[in-house]
């Protein structure tokens, strides 16, 4: 139980952010109206994805330094969970865009680049699937994972900032922190970010433990 305090924290924070996110008082802004509540679901997905993919990349670096089955499984599972968060981020973003920007896909640079980022990570899964030798698969996909993460940063943060974007924080639009994110939003937003990220970590650690055991079983069979 002592080791699992963060899982309890995760459940409490998520319950709080879902209930609070729908029921608590939110600032009333033009166009956004009630859809501002999506801040508690859409933005944590992206922040969670970045954290999970960063962890995945760190495990890949560790793998290259000292190859072990554990590091490889963790890198793969954190990447998979990160991709899941990315897909959810895009879907929640599309729903939000439908109501505020009038169409689900409006060619916004950040939206486009997020889709490209997902393509890069889908390719990671394809690459993992296309190699049979486990050690080679681990090493090559670790290399690609590092390459993918270092493309992700310019894609999501540097390139969209260069052009006009409908998203807050780029192309002359004020960033969330400046005006929009007032204290009522913060009270739910930060717990939501922490809660969703913890859930992602929970998913990834469970997945890694399963795949580590599965690998050991395969090893025993041989």
């Amino acid at each position, binding site marked *: 139980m002592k080791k699992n305090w963060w899982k309890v924290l995760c459940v409490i924070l998520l319950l709080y952010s879902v209930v609070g996110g729908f029921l608590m008082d939110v600032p009333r802004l033009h166009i956004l109206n009630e859809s501002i509540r999506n801040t508690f679901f859409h933005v944590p997905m992206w922040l969670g994805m970045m954290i999970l993919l960063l962890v995945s990349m760190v495990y890949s670096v560790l793998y*290259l330094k000292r190859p072990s089955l554990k590091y490889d499984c963790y890198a793969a599972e954190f990447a998979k969970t990160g991709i899941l968060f990315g897909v959810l981020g895009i879907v929640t973003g599309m729903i939000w865009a439908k109501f505020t920007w009038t169409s689900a896909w409006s060619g916004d640079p950040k939206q486009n680049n997020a889709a*490209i980022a997902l*393509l*890069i990570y889908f*390719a990671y899964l*394809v*690459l993992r699937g*296309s*190699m*049979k*030798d486990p*050690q*080679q698969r681990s*090493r*090559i996909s*670790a*290399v*690609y994972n*590092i*390459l*993918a993460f*270092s*493309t992700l940063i*310019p*894609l999501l943060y*540097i*390139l969209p900032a*260069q052009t006009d974007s409908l998203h807050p924080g780029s192309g002359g639009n004020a960033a969330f922190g400046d005006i929009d994110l007032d204290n009522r939003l913060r009270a739910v937003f930060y717990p939501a970010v922490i809660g969703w990220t913890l859930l992602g970590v929970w998913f990834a650690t469970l997945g890694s433990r399963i795949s580590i055991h599965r690998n050991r079983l395969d090893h025993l069979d041989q």
Partner: protein
Amino acid sequence: MLLSEVSALIKKEIIIELRQKYAINGILLYLAGTVFICYLSFGAQSSQLHPVTWNALFWIILLFTAVSAVAKSFLHESAGLMTYYYTVASGQSIITAKIIYYSLLLVALGLIGFAFYALVLGNPVHNPSLFTINIIFGAVGMATTLTLVSSIAAKAQNNQTLLAVLGLPLLIPVLLMSIKISKNAMDGLEWSASYNELAVIGSIDAIVCSLAIILFPYIWRS
């Protein structure tokens, strides 16, 4: 990594290319054929293409030429040859030599392609020197990314498809920047309008290049 080693390896690449002329001739024919198909597809309107279409088409042609030109860098090298390299040179010199050689090749292909493309489909570029510099930056970026990805794909099955799947999304940042700069060059904007984009594309090239040099020894080890 030794300078003499790198220069010897570049020399080796050039000699092999000159001995097997069919490879380079094949790529040139591919480039010319694609440009000509585009010319014929647009029919009578080909001389008054919209600048945006002209630009996008040019970069797409260059992209696919680059993919098929760099594909042979690792995919077509036998396992025995790689073992031989392993005994005589360091991984870093090999990847540096390959990157330099393929950058030169793609810059040459880009310039030849531009000349032929402009001849057939008209030349709306108002700032040719910026356009040329942009081709150099773009070609170096494509060569670096594709060389690294080709070494990754060579380790997997079904590698020709994998090269495209892994390479294309990773190339999008470079491609987007190149398209933007070349639009500036076509509109005859001042140099200062493109400094920002040139800095971004230059730094993407530098990041990928250093990643390739750091990561290649790990790919190569198997």
